[in-house]
């Protein structure tokens, strides 16, 4: 994907689709028209050169093509067509099927992108459908690529997307930016969906590494677009900061042999300082607003890690305070788990295990990072038999090979240590939590939430955030 046309596609496809959905009032028709316009561009642009406003060209061409199609379908009455349209707030002029006023709608394109984000992440849709729709409609990714990235067969993903579109259509889902009363909840759904895309890419599963890196990049691109569209929403900035700060550790997260490196063991000189500084700036601007939210707090935690020149110098007491705030806002067991891990760093494994014991274990029974974190703390507390059992459970639940290999090695090291009578394995283990998954070397499992591994993340914990 490096040709100039591909670049235009990556940049413009989502925006054009968003506008065409409003103009045509039909998702499928809009998608087809935009695809057709890009096909025409692929034919013409090599001869004519790329027009000065490629997005406008694509939108106009797609609109004209759709009008042709609609005119040819003269058997469909106007009323039938109207019935197919989405419900759109205050959009009378564009509701006109003649759609002649292109200039009028070009300047509300930004709003269209937001409308489409809120539509795709409608809470009436399951998290995996939201993610599929966003990647299909806003990122313009082919269904096959989305399926590969989330490790499901292409027909499964295709069906998921088709059903989601159909549900929105059959239910007369409105194409609008939610009003102030609904906005906080609806915005959180959008942010959570983008974060799921990020963590899907953040968690490198073996063999999928490349595709998944692209997924993280896509999530960051969507996050940037959202911050641009909603500059006054600190949670949007918080999400972008969290993604940038997590992504800054990408290079350090994997060893040369492809195995996972935990946060504590990472070569911090390989962290991307540009991303860290952008993330820090965003976190600071969020703090100034003083409207804390879960993504901002998680970004702040990531920023504390980024601030520490060595693992030993991490300000764990600050991290515990932040997890307390996170838990106060959204009491969920994953936040409590991460907090326990931070407590262990500050006050030792026994204190960490005490904190862990306060969590409702049943809610985390099938959550691999919980068992991995517990195994690590037990090992460090010298309770090796229990640690081995916890590793066994974590290995059983691990969904990707890098993660599993890591746990298997930890377990094996524990048994070797046993023989040598050593109490503690590997130096400076920052908990299993950071041991999170293959990815989150990050601030604990939390980030792990969605992290766990693409598909699992899409399931149980999608709502946890």
């Amino acid at each position, binding site marked *: 994907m490096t040709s100039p046309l591909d670049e235009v596609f990556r940049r413009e496809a989502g925006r054009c689709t968003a506008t065409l959905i409003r103009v045509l009032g039909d998702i499928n028709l809009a998608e087809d028209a935009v695809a057709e316009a890009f096909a025409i561009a692929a034919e013409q642009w090599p001869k004519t050169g790329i027009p000065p406003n490629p997005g406008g060209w694509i939108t106009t061409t797609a609109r004209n093509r759709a009008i042709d199609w609609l005119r040819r379908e003269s058997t469909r009455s106007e009323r039938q067509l109207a019935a197919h349209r989405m*419900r759109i707030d205050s959009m009378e002029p564009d509701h006109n099927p003649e759609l002649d006023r292109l200039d009028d709608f070009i300047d509300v394109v930004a709003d269209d992108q937001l409308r489409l984000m809120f539509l795709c992440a409608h809470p*009436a849709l399951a998290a995996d459908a939201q993610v599929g729709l966003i990647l299909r409609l806003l990122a313009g990714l082919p269904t096959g690529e989305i399926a590969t990235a989330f490790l499901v067969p292409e027909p499964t993903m295709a069906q998921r997307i088709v059903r989601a579109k159909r549900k*929105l259509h*059959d*239910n*007369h*889902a*409105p194409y609008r930016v*939610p009003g102030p009363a*609904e906005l906080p909840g609806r915005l959180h759904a959008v942010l959570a969906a983008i974060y799921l895309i990020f963590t899907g890419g953040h968690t490198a599963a073996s063999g999928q590494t490349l595709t998944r890196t692209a997924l993280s990049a896509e999530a960051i691109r969507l996050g940037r677009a959202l911050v641009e569209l909603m500059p006054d929403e600190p949670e949007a900035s918080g999400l972008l900061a969290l993604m940038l700060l997590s992504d800054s550790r990408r290079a350090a997260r994997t060893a040369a042999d492809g195995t996972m490196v935990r946060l504590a063991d990472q070569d911090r000189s390989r962290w991307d300082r540009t991303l860290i500084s952008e993330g820090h700036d965003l976190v600071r601007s969020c703090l100034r607003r003083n409207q804390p939210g879960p993504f901002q707090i998680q970004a702040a935690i990531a920023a504390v890690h980024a601030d520490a020149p060595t693992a030993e110098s991490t300000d764990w007491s600050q991290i515990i305070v932040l997890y307390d705030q996170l838990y106060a806002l959204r009491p969920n067991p994953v936040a409590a788990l991460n907090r326990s891990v931070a407590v262990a760093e500050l006050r030792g494994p026994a204190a960490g295990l005490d904190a862990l014991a306060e969590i409702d274990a049943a809610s985390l029974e099938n959550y691999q990072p919980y068992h991995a974190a517990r195994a690590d703390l037990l090992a460090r507390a010298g309770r090796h038999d229990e640690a081995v059992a916890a590793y066994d459970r974590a290995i059983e639940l691990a969904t990707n090979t890098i993660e599993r290999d890591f746990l298997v090695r930890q377990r094996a090291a524990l048994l070797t240590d046993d023989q040598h009578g050593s109490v503690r394995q590997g130096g400076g283990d920052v908990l299993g939590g950071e041991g999170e998954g293959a990815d989150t070397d990050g601030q604990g499992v939390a980030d792990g939430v969605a992290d766990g591994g693409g598909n699992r993340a899409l399931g149980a914990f999608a709502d946890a955030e």
Partner: protein
Amino acid sequence: MPQYLISVWHDESYEVDFSTPEAQARVAQVGAFNEELQNAGAWVFAAGLHPSSSATVVRSTGGEVSMTDGPYAETKEQMGGFWVIEAPDLDAALQWAGKAAAASGEPVEVRPAQG
């Protein structure tokens, strides 16, 4: 305007005792919600249903009609009542559904009607 079915679901393995103050409070809440729907012009129809043990399943196969004791779906959760409302779009319907769930104290399901 689109119409939506809002159905109330509950676990039928225990019987609702309508004489309790809690049940009476719910009846009053549902009454107030019905009134709100009517005042807003969103009301089409609504009813609470007798327990599913009162149901009869009727089939027509090749012109032959047969009956069996119901309910049709042998599940623990059964529909206990429903509203049919008119709403401009899904988000408006979901807002009504939220109020319906609060009034009835049970989960509700929202489904759009065809046409």
